[in-house]
């Protein structure tokens, strides 16, 4: 099993911290948007962009690049912040999130930010798109070593289209599709177990002819090892990333009401609205 050096772990943890701080600041500035998902996927994105993804921030349309498809487009604050901190564009641009004329639209829009692979937001379409890309690549080159990564939400699995794509991928048997599910157990109206229970989830994926792994979504070494293990299977694999919604800000963690609110507009019974930004930045160790 491939393992990651402790030096790299430290670098990645540093990046994840920067990403989280940027997420909080950009959402607060925007006055709307989603907090829980972006925070809980920061470790996965930091590890991924640092040590796994084949990409070139200075040449976003590099033909040999792996493809990143963000199906649960509402967590784009973490994608944008990660791209900024890995050199795709200036960190200052994150201030423009959701503003009129910004390249950083509220839900990712490829026409405004061409370095994105897809536009998304309505949920359910990303895996189909990833599948289409992988099938096209196979037509071009059966021995391609590109990977197609699709990030999805757990609530998103309520969408029928996800299962159309899962079933179809189970038929195509492509060696280079990996789906990563943000298993934070929340969605807009409450816990996933109450709104639309997903368990037994592992068995569902297995029955659709996918390999399944689980990873600790907050352990850089586990993220690194599991994604590399998935790549070695050369068969469609889904990785369930077990995460804590709003990870990094203990005062927000675990509360589904932070799914769709920015700091300053979140539930006020734990932290008053006007203190939410300050509390979050303090928890994340922002000294600016």
């Amino acid at each position: 099993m491939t393992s990651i050096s402790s030096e790299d772990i430290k670098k990645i943890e540093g990046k994840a911290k920067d990403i989280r701080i940027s997420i909080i600041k950009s959402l607060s500035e925007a006055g709307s948007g989603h907090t829980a998902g972006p925070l809980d996927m920061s470790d996965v994105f930091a590890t991924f962009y640092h040590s796994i993804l084949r990409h070139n921030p200075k040449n976003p349309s590099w033909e040999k690049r792996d493809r990143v498809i963000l199906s649960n487009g509402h967590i784009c604050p973490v994608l944008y912040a990660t791209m900024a901190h890995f050199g795709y564009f200036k960190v200052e641009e994150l201030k423009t999130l959701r503003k009129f004329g910004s390249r950083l639209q509220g839900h990712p829009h490829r026409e405004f930010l061409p370095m994105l692979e897809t536009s998304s937001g309505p949920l359910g379409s990303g895996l189909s798109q990833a599948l289409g890309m992988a099938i096209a690549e196979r037509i071009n080159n059966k021995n391609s070593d590109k990977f197609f990564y699709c990030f999805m939400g757990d609530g998103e699995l309520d969408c029928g289209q996800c299962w159309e794509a899962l079933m179809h991928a189970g038929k195509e048997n492509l060696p280079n599709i990996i789906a990563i599910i943000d298993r934070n157990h929340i969605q807009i109206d409450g816990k996933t177990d109450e709104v639309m229970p997903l368990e037994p989830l592992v068995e569902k994926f297995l029955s659709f002819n996918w390999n399944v792994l689980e990873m600790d979504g907050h352990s850089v070494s586990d993220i690194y090892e599991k994604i590399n293990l998935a790549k070695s299977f050369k068969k469609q694999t889904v990785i369930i990333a077990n995460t804590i919604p709003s990870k990094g800000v203990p005062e927000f963690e675990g509360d589904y009401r932070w799914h769709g609110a920015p700091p300053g507009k979140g539930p006020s019974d734990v932290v008053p609205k006007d203190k939410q930004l300050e509390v979050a930045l303090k928890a994340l160790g922002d000294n600016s």
Partner: protein
Amino acid sequence: MLERSLNKKIFSDDVEQQPIRKGYGQGLLEAGERNKNVVALCADLTESTHTHLFRNRFPERFVQVGVGEQSMASVASGMASMGKIPFFSSYAMFSPGRNWEQIRTTICYNDTNAKIAGSHAGISVGPDGGTHQALEDIAITRVIPNMTVIVPCDMEEARKATIEAAEFVGPVYIRLARENTPVITTKDTQFKIGDAEVFFKSSNPRITIFACGSVMHSAMVAANTLSEENIGSIVVNVSTIKPLDKRIVEYSKETNLVLTVESHQRIGGMGSAISELLSEVSPMRVVRIGVDDKFGQSGSPAELLEHYGLGTQSIVKKVKDLVKQ
């Protein structure tokens, strides 16, 4: 007077009859032979949509998605992102019907080079009945930004339209019909996306008739019948609904009385599109023949056309009523 390149046997009883959807199948195959980036997808309806021709010739470039129209649209989007030119087909009620949002978000919003072929559109799908007769598909596709909407009038035009769609860069919807209809155009008839051509013109036209798709022939037969009773008309083939050919305004101004005919709801289709244009640029009376806010039902194509007022007799009667007023 018939446009000179058209089939000279249009008004004969033994005019050649072919299904419009077959033209898509032939055009797709030809497009695939010309350009190796053309790929095809289908939702369990390959023979019905004539996609089997492409599938048999280029199996490695064909994707079968089963009855998963929503995913099909987005799989096509993904393939287009990698430089392919995907054509995906099903019945119009399911695609763009069921997968309208996926088409909007992953194709039009993304300005993706994917082509949608919706077969079995219109009332004369026949015995399958109302659930399978798409009467709203022109309305729901023309309203999406970046979408081009084509409604071929016969098999030959559908073939040309498909080939041209492959060369056109951007989302395209091609509306196809199930039943056999007369072949109106010939290999020599020009087809260009965005052009509406005059197919029939009398020397003293009293009315301009715009028609599209499978009812085009009925409109032409009606015009011919009317001309024999000294009621002249201009008949225009509106094969592209979006973008609308601006010459439609000129054709309309020749008579200042417009009738539109389509196998589609009166609300929102080709007639509505022309009404929108004329009311803004050159207001005049526009009367729309179409399905009058009802669903379809089982029956033979002829019975259904008669029942819903889309047949030749209904068109003749309507024109006579209008020119009297």
